């Protein structure tokens, strides 16, 4: 890379940094090729996640994920609205950093990913052939979209 290219690259990086993250995502979705509609978890993984959800999460978020007085729902309009336009990395990190409420971070990354797979299944996002990642960086490449995108032409 010559000096000019390096400078150009640096400017691009700086421009990207200056741009608020949410705005960048909203304006440049083409960079992220996958969304929750592309089959980003497996049935087996969701099955693994269900008992963990019931043990670790359901007391506050509800037996049917409909939330309670002390925790928001993990299905339905409010849930979809909260995360629409963000990434699975954002959602995963939220769980990772703050849940379960009593001892945040007590579960393994794999368990968190399995719970998330279960939540996706309850929300009727399509099942795929590969498991949901457990690395935040990789999950950031998967967009959370509340509504199914129109079929690509």
């Amino acid at each position, binding site marked *: 890379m010559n000096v000019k290219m390096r400078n150009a690259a640096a400017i691009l990086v700086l421009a990207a940094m200056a741009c608020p993250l949410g705005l960048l995502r909203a304006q440049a979705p083409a960079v992220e090729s996958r969304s929750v509609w592309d089959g980003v978890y497996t049935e087996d993984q969701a099955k693994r996640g269900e008992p963990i959800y019931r043990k670790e999460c359901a007391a506050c978020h509800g037996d049917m994920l409909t*939330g309670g007085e002390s925790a928001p729902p993990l299905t*339905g309009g409010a849930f*979809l609205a909260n995360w629409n336009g963000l990434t699975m990395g954002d959602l995963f990190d939220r769980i990772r950093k703050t849940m379960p409420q009593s001892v945040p971070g007590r579960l393994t990354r794999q368990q968190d990913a399995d719970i998330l797979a279960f939540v996706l299944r309850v929300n009727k996002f399509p099942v795929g052939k590969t498991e949901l990642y457990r690395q935040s960086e990789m999950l950031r490449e998967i967009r959370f979209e*509340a509504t199914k995108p129109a079929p690509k032409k």
Partner: protein
Amino acid sequence: MREKKSKGLHALLFLFYAGLLCWPAAASAQSHPKDAEWPTYAADLAGTRYRPLDQINASNFSDLEIAWRIKTDNFGDRPEYKLEGTPLMVNGVLYATAGSRRAVIALDPATGELLWIHGEHEGKRGGAAPRQLSGRGLAYWSDGKEERILYVTPGFRLICLDAKTGARIPSFGNNGEVDLKLNDDQDIFPDLVTGEIGIQSAPVVAKDTVIIGAAFREGMTPKSMRNNKGYVRGFDVRTGRRLWIFHTIPKKGEFGYDTWEKGSAEYTGNTGVWTQITVDEQLGLVYLPVESPTSDFYGGHRPGNNLFGETLVCVDLKTGERKWHFQLVHHPLWDMDISSAPILADITVDGKPVKAVAQPSKQGFLYVFDRLTGKPIWPIPERPVEVGNVAGEWYSPTQPIPTKPLAYSRNGVSIDDLIDFTPALRDRAKEIASKYHLGPVYTPPTVSKPDGPLGTLTMGTASGGTNWPGGSYDPETHNVYVYACNSCIEPIGLVPAPKEISDLNYIAGTAGKEVEILKGPGENAGADSPKPPKNRQGSGYVSLNIDGLPLVKPPYGTITAINLDKGEFVWQIAHGETPDVVRNNEALKGLNIPPTGQETYNIGTLVTKTLVIAGEGHVTTTADHPRGAMLRAYDKMTGKEVGAVYMPAPQTGSPMTYLVNGKQYIVVAVSGGPYSGEYIAYTLPSAGE
């Protein structure tokens, strides 16, 4: 490290001396008319959330800008994402609870500058608390000389602070604290550290008496029919001495004991007052909104009407003695805790002045009583309701149904309520609904069966109608303004409880799912990993929305103005931007859908001289604003929207307002999803801008 810290008290005091020095000057610059302050959680002890301020009005609401903001991330060992507080503003200082430690902060109300902070490290006791995070707020008291702040920690200790410094008041209780797990006419089991009892609401102080209720874990799948009881107590604000106690589950020999058949009052628990308490200081009366007994959805172990479960109880402020009561739901089976502050209103009915109390509810009824006698202002007759057939259950054949005002939110689910945007969507909704038992309010829960019904589809319960934010009352128009979730449906199914799980006959659950006790926060904190998955017979999870659309028709969330002189609606509007999932839904392309409002349950309102103000509970992204939510203002006479201002996240704590240095401010708590808690203060641009 954490354990070591927890053994001692850590009162964190950051005295900003400059701020303190400025304090008296700022205080004396104004006369502090009470109308300009916000001295209790709900603006006053009457629960009105009303201030007659008018600097911010229809002509300028949309010009509001952020005066200051404060993130609560650092007021605890981790951020919180559900900030529910409403601050106080008294005598030139703003006070709030904040952060996952439920710290108390004092701020300059004009600039947001931190004046002091107080935090309590409670270790395991805090971690095991049934109601964690920052809570809803605190209480202020002054005798004209001394000023005190009172709040309850997650670990259920009442703390009394010097409002000027944030230091504990040594002469109050035991060096500034009263252990609320003691001296409660019961032994909290299993022990003081893990014993389940706490509170998240703000204390109330009236005529030198601090009044504290109690809260527990969610009561859907308790391990036992036995639990600690949620008595209400009054304490001397000067000394912390207990003045009185009201037994929300009567003791033997007390009135109401016989409404617990087979001795069930002895072991049944919960039945606390977890939401805001209201007081009429002039009459010396306290209004207690009581929640459900153990357990929420199965009452076979507590036959009888179960006083004072889901009952509005009026007690004497000085003695705690019961003056009158009205049970809103006999033998509770739907988790219809009385969830918000009773509202005191001096109204005129048929030409006669009436001192009334109005109670919003999850079931969408506004119950209105004479607050001296408890007599309903309009008839509330007993009506027959469906009697279920769950083994061992005891059913009340009737429930009290108000004739006036009419229900202000949907409180049952019928085929007519199902989504009808298109025939295809309606067919899908019918298919989902066919798996459930449907019916009007008070349709009883069913045993869940794999071939149906999976349960009873209900409104109300955890999130329908009006929950803890409650309503507002305008003493000028005699209108109650109240938000309601009109679409927060929830299935209630029961499954037999395996003996190793619970000693109840039934707990909440769905056929086809593995039965497991739902553990609360703080339980099993030391465990490393969950049990390995067990074999199951398929999943009983049925999504209650269709491509993200609610199963029922809009409006999804409403604000209703109800005139208390007449018991009639003045207006009703859908509150909040139509959700993205509706506006952008492929299945709805080409349809003209009026504003739907939003499906959310924790929206509080504020009423001023001219406006009703409430934020949105959903994030949306529209052509008018980036990803975020709007704080909206409505003309209080008509419900017409007159302005809106952008918030970076949904409203999660109810807005409040005050005037300081000649400027009006509105403060609101926002959080949710990826956005951690933040108090934001809005004000108008300074002149010349």
